[in-house]
């Protein structure tokens, strides 16, 4: 907007009036009123005991749940990322068996509800009462009771991790395909095998494209872990629900859990922003270098 006065033909400075945006003012005021009214309804609700929210916000069980939620999120994301890269490489392999197996995996884990998968892993003992890891045809090995291994925690970690891998594989595949095909040819021309080209040339560049979306996956995972409460994973949501089942302060504890989820999301969003600044410029350059319109970056949601 212009800040200096306009000089008239006679050489006199004439000030410029501020433009008025009546439409904007009206829409803004209306939105604030509606929003404020909704907040007021919640805050002043006589059935809501705000002192209970304050009391439980730093409750030991809640804090322990936050720790478990973070642990599950980090471990499941790690499993998802590693397995996702493996699946993406399999999907792009020349070997038709590997390619179809990866497709089948992705179809299965994207095609069944996450809730079903969590309950499945938790109840694995019905199918395999004991888990045995043994050198074939010998007695050397270890044996576990499935019910001891498959706690809510491990079921959650496995279920969420394997599920994320299926989604993440598509992101990685797009990243791999975004790396300029000419560099692959240059790698071959220098005498690299396909595997070495993938490891030394393609993956390091694909990862720069993939890293920013992983932030989104992690943020999404923080909240998806709340599903773990069906298998009693002792995460934030499970613990909050256990408290409200005993004292019936359902809304208050949901608010407590939500506040913590929002805080974790805010912190993760901040970290993601830094991650993107670190790798983003590289990613943009790599994408711009790619040749064809085949290239796309997958849309991700927080």
């Amino acid at each position, binding site marked *: 907007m212009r800040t200096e006065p306009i000089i008239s033909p006679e050489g006199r400075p004439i000030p410029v009036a501020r433009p008025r945006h009546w439409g904007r003012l009206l829409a803004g005021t209306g939105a604030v009123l509606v929003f404020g009214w909704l907040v007021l309804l919640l805050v002043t609700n006589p059935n809501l005991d705000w002192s209970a929210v304050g009391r439980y916000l730093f409750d030991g069980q809640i804090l322990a749940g936050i720790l478990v939620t973070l642990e599950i999120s980090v471990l499941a994301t790690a499993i998802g990322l590693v397995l996702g890269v493996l699946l993406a490489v399999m999907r792009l392999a020349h070997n038709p068996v590997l390619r179809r197996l990866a497709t089948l995996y992705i179809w299965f884990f994207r095609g069944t509800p996450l809730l079903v998968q969590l309950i499945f892993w938790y109840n694995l003992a019905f199918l395999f009462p004991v888990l045995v890891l043994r050198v074939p045809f010998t007695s050397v090995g270890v044996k576990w009771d499935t019910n001891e291994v498959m706690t809510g925690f491990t079921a959650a970690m496995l279920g969420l991790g394997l599920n994320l891998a299926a989604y993440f594989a598509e992101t990685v595949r797009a990243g791999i395909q975004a790396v300029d095909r000419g560099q692959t*040819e240059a790698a071959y021309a220098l005498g690299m095998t396909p595997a070495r080209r993938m490891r030394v040339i393609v993956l390091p560049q694909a990862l720069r494209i993939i890293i920013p979306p992983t932030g989104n996956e992690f943020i999404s995972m923080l909240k998806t872990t709340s599903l773990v409460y069906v298998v009693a994973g002792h995460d934030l949501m499970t613990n909050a629900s256990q408290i409200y089942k005993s004292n019936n302060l359902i809304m208050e504890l949901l608010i407590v859990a939500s506040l913590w989820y929002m805080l974790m999301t805010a912190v993760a969003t901040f970290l993601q922003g830094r991650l993107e600044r670190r790798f983003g410029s590289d990613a943009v350059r790599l994408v711009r270098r790619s040749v064809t319109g085949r290239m796309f970056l997958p849309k991700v949601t927080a």
Partner: protein
Amino acid sequence: MSVVVAASGVRMGYGDTQVLHGVDFTVRQGEVSCVIGPSGSGKSTFLRCVNGLEPVLGGSLRVLGEEVGYTMGAGRYHPWTPKRFAAFRRNIGMVFQRFNLFAHQTALENVACAPIHVAGRTPAAARELAMRHLEQVGLAAHAHKRPHQLSGGQQQRVAIARALAMEPALMLFDEPTSALDPELVDEVLEVMKALARGGMTMIVVTHEIGFAREVGDTLTFFADGVVVESGRPEAVLAGPRHERTRTFLASVL
């Protein structure tokens, strides 16, 4: 002089489109063989067949004493594995029109990459070797820059150094100056001339007729997937025997 590349009746195509209709072509050791021709004539495709980036469908293509892509055994030819292809390509350097430098590595890392990951040298030895090759193309001062920080001419010189670091017996140039701004062409051609003077066996697909005349030992004209004519550059340029060659030369000179 021993024969480095011997092609006879090489055919190649994608699906229904035939790109090479029987190419005959010979390169001897130490020769600089320049290839010209209109776009779509198959000259780049042929070059890519020489190091096995494209599969040959018919005829025979022998490079460095081997039938490209096949090993004779028990009276039959057995197709190469990707690993065998990789071993074959170690001895052949290639320079691309679009440079194709590794975007995540510095100039030095680009040159040191194959010595480390293909030839199995130690990183320290490879970096020293890479530095020597960068000096050769006049880019020692830019060793720690990434490709996007270099001009097209500098990138192409890094690409040449990268190929030379594997000490190849044959160098392939696929229109190395076609993607360059006109004022950057000469710095790349100078590096190639020095390489030619050093006795390197080279196949150069190019539009630089002046380079072909000055440096080339042979000049081959490709059109419609065949070799139309071939000979000493000055002879082909001064007195083309075929009408097709005459019209092409008239349009580029």
